[in-house]
């Protein structure tokens, strides 16, 4: 019962905020709606019994990525919303025009129909495993997997994060000349 309620609330939050990311006119609102989408996906992880992934999603995405995006919006916004002419949809020019929206919706519809056709075969023929609803904690098992089976990927991801940190600092550093 609790899981059903959590699933319905999370799915509604995810879908509504995702559509809002697509149609909103303001980039700042778009970032905040992305936050709602990520909270909904974390709730869906919780309904799947993935407690550690849900907490990691909340910490990394909401604590890190969305804050970073909001900083980028605030540091780079400004002129585009004021000086550029508005397009026919009433959107600011940087948020797309009717041609890009038409092309995007066409691609989206084609991709959606293709995947519905594929998924209809997959869903009806899928062998499902035994489902138990008493979610045990996954943290200790995930820890063992990370340092036993997947230790190479773990180390490579640490090098990746170090490279991303240094690279982001080098790319965004202020330059005196030019």
């Amino acid at each position: 019962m609790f899981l059903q309620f959590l699933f319905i609330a999370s799915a509604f939050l995810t879908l509504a905020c995702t559509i809002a990311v697509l149609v909103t006119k303001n980039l700042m609102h778009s970032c905040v709606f992305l936050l709602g989408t990520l909270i909904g996906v974390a709730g869906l992880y919780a309904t799947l019994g993935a407690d550690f992934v849900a907490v990691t999603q909340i910490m990394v995405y909401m604590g890190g990525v969305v804050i970073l995006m909001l900083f980028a919006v605030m540091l780079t916004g400004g002129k585009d919303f004021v000086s550029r002419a508005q397009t026919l949809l009433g959107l600011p020019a940087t948020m797309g025009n009717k041609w890009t929206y038409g092309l995007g919706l066409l691609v989206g519809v084609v991709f959606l129909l293709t995947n519905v056709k594929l998924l209809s075969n997959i869903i009806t023929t899928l062998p499902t495993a035994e489902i138990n609803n008493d979610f045990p904690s996954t943290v200790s098992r995930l820890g063992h997997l990370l340092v036993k089976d997947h230790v190479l990927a773990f180390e490579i991801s640490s090098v990746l994060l170090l490279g991303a940190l240094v690279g982001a600092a080098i790319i965004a550093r202020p330059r005196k000349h030019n």
Partner: protein
Amino acid sequence: MMSLASYLIISLVLFVVGLVVMIARKNIVAILLGIELILNAAALNFVAYSRYVTNNLDGHIFSLFIIVVAAAEAAVGLAIVIRFFQIKETIHIDEATQLRN
């Protein structure tokens, strides 16, 4: 109600909306938002299959690494956006023509 099919459909909607955002928007930060949506759709698929089909934790590991890669990608991408804004004073994607000729 809670079955593999519903999770796959939610993930499909996330992916399609991310794709449409990437195509329709002309703002670089908005395109990065679309990439985040697509990565979330992939991670949700991994966890759903890991619960309903394989019944082990390898899908969770994949989702964790997807989150790590998304964080690294967002850091580097937003650094590039801020550098681009310092040079061009805009983040309109049509202004990024320095490699054209």
